[in-house]
């Protein structure tokens, strides 16, 4: 389908604030927006392998309700009437919750994830459950075809992967099929599809957003966050979903948005660029094993921020990150998925690595898990010290562009290597934002990531927003969408 409906409606690059303004000015209705998204998802979802379930009936009812409320003067805030999609790891009544695995494709959970409830309370309209890597990659995977919905494709080039495990969340936002989407991250699953699809992904601090009703891969690592068209949009979604939830005792009562909240339809009250001088930390070795284009775009992005930022070289604390995350993930995933490992259902997974990964998880040494948790406790003061001298860390989000579908990940780009930053910061629970910063090989997006202190999401949004006000990479739309 060319000349998509979103373009016809003039909303392909509309921010959430723009859409809210159009809704309140009666230039468009929530019903029209929702119908447009449903049409787009139906038209392009099968091409991208990005959609699991369209929520047509419920979405149209929600949209009508949103329109009626606005007409009656009831305004639920900046997300009122705005459609979105959710990774199919969140329970939502009225649709199967598949976790991307074939053996759960017909399973309907009789509960609603807290984030879905909170977005409904904010007036947002859930239009679709979106594709994901099976079990969020919890049993291991080494290929794009690791979901019962097939390999999800980046809309920038259909021969290349969307990233994962929040695959459909990245692909559908990039293709402008939904204004925003929910994803989750254990060790890269928000920032990875954000990078490969060229969208803005915000991984909140551990505990910032309730995980009730979301699939558990690792109780001590999982985070829920939005994938959006811009940092400003990500802030609006975060504000709607953050905060303590009695149903998730690991959720914090501390909010990332303690500062004055913006008025419901106003743009987020961010500092105008140039008002603050940033101290951006770059960890040693950050650029070393990146593709040349990734390196070049990263340096150019730092150049864009140079007028109000100082670059400071820092050393990432030395810990055996791979071993720590390996022990934590294996032990917690073995417990979370013990039933499907022991009854053999894992052998129905699409990825050969995933079919057998769980068996070795079951026999991880308990002492290794305890040691890993002791290392994590030791990492906390080391990271606080590293952040003493910087406001944020910056790095290329990934060392490469998206890998081609059909090639095992470890064979796709020899000589490149992703640094330890994503794993390290997931282990300490620090937030990050990934922002598109140009194109690399095959015209595929590259991305820069900023990492902040716990609950410093507003700092991340501010610096990412400053960057996006000076550049237009986040407004680029893949050809054909």
């Amino acid at each position: 389908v060319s000349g998509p409906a979103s373009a016809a409606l003039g909303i392909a690059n509309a921010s959430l604030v723009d859409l809210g303004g159009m809704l309140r000015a009666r230039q468009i209705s929530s019903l029209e927006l929702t119908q447009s998204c449903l049409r787009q998802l139906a038209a392009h979802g099968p091409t991208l392998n990005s959609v699991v379930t369209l929520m047509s009936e419920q979405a149209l009812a929600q949209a009508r309700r949103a329109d009626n409320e606005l007409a009656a003067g009831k305004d639920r805030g900046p997300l009122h009437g705005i459609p979105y999609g959710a990774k199919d790891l969140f329970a939502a009544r009225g649709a199967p919750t598949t976790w991307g695995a074939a053996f759960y494709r017909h399973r309907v959970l009789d509960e609603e994830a807290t984030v879905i409830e909170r977005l409904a309370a904010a007036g947002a309209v859930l239009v679709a459950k979106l594709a994901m890597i099976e079990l969020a990659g919890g049993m291991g995977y080494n290929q794009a075809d690791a979901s019962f919905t097939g390999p999800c494709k980046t809309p920038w080039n259909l021969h290349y992967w969307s990233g994962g495990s929040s695959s459909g969340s990245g692909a559908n936002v990039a293709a402008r099929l939904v204004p925003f989407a929910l994803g989750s991250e254990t060790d890269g699953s928000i920032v990875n599809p954000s990078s490969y699809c060229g969208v803005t992904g915000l991984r909140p601090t551990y505990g910032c957003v309730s995980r009730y009703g979301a699939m558990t891969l690792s109780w001590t690592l999982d985070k829920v966050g939005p994938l959006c068209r811009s940092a400003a949009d990500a802030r609006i979604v975060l504000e709607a979903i953050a905060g303590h939830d009695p149903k998730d005792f690991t959720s914090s009562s501390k909010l990332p948005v303690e500062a004055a909240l913006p008025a419901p339809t106003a743009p987020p009250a961010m500092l105008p660029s140039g008002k603050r001088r940033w101290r951006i930390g770059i960890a040693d070795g950050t650029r070393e094993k990146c593709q040349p284009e990734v390196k070049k775009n990263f340096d150019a992005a730092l150049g864009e921020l140079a007028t109000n930022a100082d670059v400071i070289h820092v050393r990432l604390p030395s810990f055996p990150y791979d071993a720590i995350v390996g022990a934590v993930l294996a032990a917690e995933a073995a417990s979370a998925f013990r039933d499907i490992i022991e009854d053999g259902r894992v052998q129905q997974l699409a990825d050969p690595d995933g079919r057998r990964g769980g068996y070795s998880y079951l026999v991880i040494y308990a002492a290794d898990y305890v040691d890993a948790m002791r290392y994590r406790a030791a990492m906390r003061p080391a990271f606080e010290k590293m952040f003493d001298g910087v406001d944020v860390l910056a790095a290329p989000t990934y060392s490469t562009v998206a890998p081609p579908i059909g090639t095992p990940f470890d064979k796709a780009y020899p000589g490149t290597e992703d640094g330890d930053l994503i794993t390290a910061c997931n282990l300490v629970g620090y937030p990050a934002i990934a922002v598109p910063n140009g194109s690399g090989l095959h015209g595929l997006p590259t991305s820069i990531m900023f990492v902040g202190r716990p609950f410093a999401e507003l700092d991340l949004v501010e610096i990412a927003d400053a960057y996006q006000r000076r550049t237009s990479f986040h407004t680029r739309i893949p050809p054909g969408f």
Partner: protein
Amino acid sequence: MTAKIAKDINDNLFIANAFRKLRSVALPPPDFVFVASAADRP
């Protein structure tokens, strides 16, 4: 399949080996959140 699983299990040893190399590091207690009463949960 069985051989690959056996190899995976053997590969788990990389974790113990990585930790063993750093035995001299003084590690704090693990950061588990366990409380005797649900009311005391953070």
